[in-house]
């Protein structure tokens, strides 16, 4: 393709993006007399990334008073780039608009770590800002001849004794020589570690610099806008899919016919039809590359048709998932805690016992934009990767391992792209493996764009679960004991697919699960929790089968569905209102206040479920309401669902969802509201629609009409309740909302019909079978 036009914008940005040897830090350092003593400077093997013990690696004050903040964490679509700016602005007493964030670039950012781990990421930059603030006060005291205690700072202007100076003037032409105390390390391949990679947490800024009291906040607690939104709306954002490099090839992958097929022979390209296209192959990794994207697409389609693969069929089929999990010999639990003897005794003495089994299918992250990566692997051993991964340092380590090059030779640059909801948290999965291998083989920069079908068939998935729970209830209707056991395939396999198929080195986690529940019912003291793990489904495939990975609100999303389901069943067994029943099992004032506030917002009428008019047969529509709670990362959540169920069809329509949160201090009310409402949408999607289907060979839910997600029309009215506190620290808010939806919807179906739904998704087919008693769902009461 050639283009003749004079009205172009400039060549796309990537031509100027090779920044090897870029000045790593612009600002400067100084030693402040006020700096708290007592920390040891850490000898850091910084692998070519900026040294996290140096202030200038994190923060740079420019003479125009703008402040550059660098973090290896990235924006994942929930607004944390706004919160980072707010935290820094708060401690430095500047306006958040003056903060420029540099994120996820291994050559320019010092810390690494999980992007989803916002609270630790924010703590890092907030402490860096607080240390810097103290240092700047010291500088200003000297400059103005006024003791630091007599200085005030407003919008970056330090005043005292009738004089003032801006931050920019204070540091102009100076080196700010300030050390930042940190703990941690960069990721390293370590097969003895559970994840197969150590150091994914990155660095933590330590010490206790003086920080503002929450009651004094001026920027945190306001609805500061997410900095990147204006450019996204006007077309100025440079996404990872916009990267183009001189001589770059477009690649489309030709994937194995099944999750375990080995390559027999590669199809050929008709060079008359596709003169610039070439097949590239390593092991079972097959791709078609061309300088022209459309030619690569068409040629790859023809190559896919004529490429031959061996047969494989080692999966159970998704309709047999629960049966297969039930038949698994689980061995010892991955984790077990609680009072085993007390629980058994209490269960035996209980006036009533409830025993229930819950099931969840495989679901997946399903981003709107399929995976994409661009890689430039040079003869000199240097590797540059443009990615939308949420773990730049972890990805860098994995790539170095796969290509057998020194980590220092690899640069990973993060750019915005489609949300992934935890899929790249461990630095793997993704198209980066494909891209670096193809670039190495071709000697050219390569852009790998997965197709949707490929993404829905070959990316990692959130595995299915079965859960067995028991509760004992005394004569007063109180739960005296609870036993929960959760069973699931591996959920932390973040290997790079390209490396797996090419037969190159890549490490994975060990099978096993973790107890994700944070216990909100301290009055239920007798409890026993167990989790069991197994390898991936289809693990005997050379590629490891259906690779399980974490997804938004991991572990707790699945465990809370069962736990809150059982609490709702226990409330019904005790003929108690579900909200009142919960209040009787906790004395936590935050939870009780949130329950009351959310109930009030939803106009909740106290009564037991099911509804007196509940029925499961006949014509017409029945109505129900249900609720659940969750405690996660110092945030309390309450969800209340109201729905209508059409009995003849089994169709469930959620008409309203009320969601309440107490996350300690609310950092950004509007953005939290956006995350709560969008989390409810994702949660309803999981509750009503989502299921990864597979046959014995492969995933079959490989487009949007087979992997259905919620549409706008299916979204109910969503009401939000927020409680902000100045004395309980910060809690999580970006995720978790999705996890308080399925248990509430299941409870509302029970309210409407008297039949408890112990499985999601609540599709018309499943609900119809459930109401007819045709679903094999175990439950008993005695």
């Amino acid at each position, binding site marked *: *393709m*050639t*283009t*003749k*036009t004079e*009205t172009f*914008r400039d060549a*796309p940005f990537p031509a100027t993006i090779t920044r090897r040897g870029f000045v790593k830090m612009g600002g400067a350092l100084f030693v402040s007399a006020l700096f708290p003593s007592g920390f040891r400077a850490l000898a850091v093997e910084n692998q070519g990334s900026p040294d996290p013990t140096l202030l200038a690696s994190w923060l740079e004050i420019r003479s125009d008073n703008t402040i550059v903040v660098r973090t290896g964490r990235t924006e*994942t*679509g*929930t607004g944390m780039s706004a919160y980072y700016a707010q935290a820094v602005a708060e401690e430095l007493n500047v306006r958040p608009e003056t903060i420029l964030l540099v994120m996820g670039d291994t050559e320019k950012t010092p810390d690494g770590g999980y992007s989803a781990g916002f609270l630790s990421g924010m703590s890092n930059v907030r402490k860096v800002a607080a240390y810097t603030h103290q240092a700047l006060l010291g500088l200003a005291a000297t400059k103005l001849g006024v003791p630091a205690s007599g200085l005030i700072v407003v919008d970056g202007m330090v005043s005292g004794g009738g004089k003032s100076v801006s931050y920019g003037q204070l540091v102009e032409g100076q080196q700010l020589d300030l050390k930042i105390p940190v703990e941690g390390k960069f990721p390293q391949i370590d097969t003895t570690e559970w994840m197969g990679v150590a150091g994914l947490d990155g660095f933590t800024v330590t010490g206790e610099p003086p920080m503002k009291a929450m009651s004094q906040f001026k920027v945190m607690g306001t609805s500061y*806008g*997410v900095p*990147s*939104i*204006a450019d*996204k*709306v*006007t*077309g100025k*954002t440079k*996404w990872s*899919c*916009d990267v*183009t490099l001189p001589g770059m090839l477009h690649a489309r992958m030709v994937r194995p016919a099944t999750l375990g097929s080995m390559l027999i022979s590669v199809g050929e390209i008709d060079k008359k039809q596709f003169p610039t296209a070439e097949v590239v192959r390593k092991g079972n990794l097959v791709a078609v590359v061309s300088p022209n*994207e*459309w030619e690569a697409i068409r040629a790859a389609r023809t190559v896919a048709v004529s490429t031959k693969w061996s047969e494989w069929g080692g999966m159970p089929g998704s309709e047999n998932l629960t049966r297969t999990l039930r038949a698994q010999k689980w061995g010892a639990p991955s984790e077990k805690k609680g009072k085993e003897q007390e629980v058994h005794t209490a269960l035996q003495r209980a006036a009533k016992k409830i025993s229930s089994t819950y099931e969840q299918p495989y679901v997946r*992250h*399903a*981003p*709107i*934009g*399929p995976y994409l990566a661009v890689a430039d692997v040079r003869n000199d051993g240097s590797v540059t990767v443009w990615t939308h991964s949420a773990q730049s340092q972890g990805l860098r380590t994995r790539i170095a391992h796969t290509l057998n090059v020194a980590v220092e030779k690899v640069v990973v640059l993060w750019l*915005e*792209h*489609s*949300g992934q*909801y935890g899929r790249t948290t461990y630095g793997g999965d993704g198209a980066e493996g494909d891209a670096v291998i193809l670039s190495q083989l071709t000697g050219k920069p390569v852009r790998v764009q997965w*197709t*949707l079908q490929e993404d829905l068939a070959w990316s990692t998935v959130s595995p299915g679960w079965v859960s067995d729970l028991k509760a004992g209830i005394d004569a007063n209707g109180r739960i005296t004991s609870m036993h929960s056991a959760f069973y699931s395939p591996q959920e932390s396999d973040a290997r790079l697919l390209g490396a797996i198929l090419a037969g190159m080195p890549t490490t994975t986690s060990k099978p096993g699960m973790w107890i994700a529940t944070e216990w909100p019912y301290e009055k239920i003291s007798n409890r026993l929790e167990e989790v069991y793990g197994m390898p991936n489904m289809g693990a005997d495939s050379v590629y490891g089968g259906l690779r399980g990975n974490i997804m938004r609100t991991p572990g707790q999303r699945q465990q809370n569905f069962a736990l809150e389901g059982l609490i709702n069943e226990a409330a019904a067994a005790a003929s108690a209102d579900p909200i009142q029943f919960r209040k009787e099992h906790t004395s936590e004032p935050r939870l009780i206040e949130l329950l009351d506030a959310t109930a009030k917002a939803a106009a909740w009428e106290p009564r037991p479920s099911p509804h007196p008019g509940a029925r499961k047969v006949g014509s017409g529509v029945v109505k129900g309401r249900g609720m659940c709670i969750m405690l996660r990362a110092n945030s309390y959540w309450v969800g209340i669902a109201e729905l209508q169920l059409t009995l003849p069809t089994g169709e469930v329509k959620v008409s309203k969802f009320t969601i309440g949160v107490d996350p300690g201090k609310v950092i950004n009310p*509007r*953005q939290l509201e*956006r*995350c709560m*409402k*969008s*989390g*409810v*949408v*994702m949660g309803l*999607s999981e509750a009503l629609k989502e299921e990864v289907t597979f046959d014995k060979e492969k995933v079959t839910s490989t*487009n*949007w*009409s087979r992997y259905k*997600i919620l*549409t*706008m*029309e299916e*979204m109910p009215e*969503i009401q939000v309740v927020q409680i902000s506190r100045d004395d309980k620290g910060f809690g999580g808010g970006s995720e978790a909302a999705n996890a308080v939806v399925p248990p509430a919807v299941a409870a509302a179906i029970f309210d409407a019909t008297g039949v408890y739904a112990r499985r999601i998704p609540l599709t018309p087919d499943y609900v119809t079978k459930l109401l007819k008693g045709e679903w094999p769902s175990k439950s008993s009461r005695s």
Partner: protein
Amino acid sequence: MANEITLSVNGAKQVVSVAPETPLLFVLRNELKLSGPRLGCGMAQCGSCSVLLDGQEIRSCVTPVSFAVGKRVTTIEGLPAVWAAEKGLSAEDALKTLHPVQQAWIDEQVPQCGYCQSGMMMVAVQLLGENPNPTVAQIKDAFTNAPPSPHLCRCGTYAAIIDAVQRAAKAMKA
């Protein structure tokens, strides 16, 4: 085989040399370097590639470039000029202007990852052109039931989109 094809994109004449069956999306992105429309499903199931063709939203991932010949193609990059022309703004003022839909998307902080939002804004512009005062039900209908498929947002920003469409509707009447 490549043909010379003349297009009208965001008010400018563009001549490209491409195979006529090439999907418009790849011409806009790779030849004209417009990053607003983005590849999603590649089969008209999600709407992230949507652009306006003579004011009607189409899926550029399945629309051959030849189909766009003689029609006006508008991407989010061209929305400010569309609004400036509607309001008869001077060239100088037009440069400082955003389409009310874009401004509403900023004011309501709609995008999360933002990948699908170019397509969402295209639906909003078409809807508000046809119905200056849509109800919530009409907004939901436009984003869900217009062929060939619902516009999908995996981040779940639907509530924010409804807020923004209503805000833009007010701004456009002002």
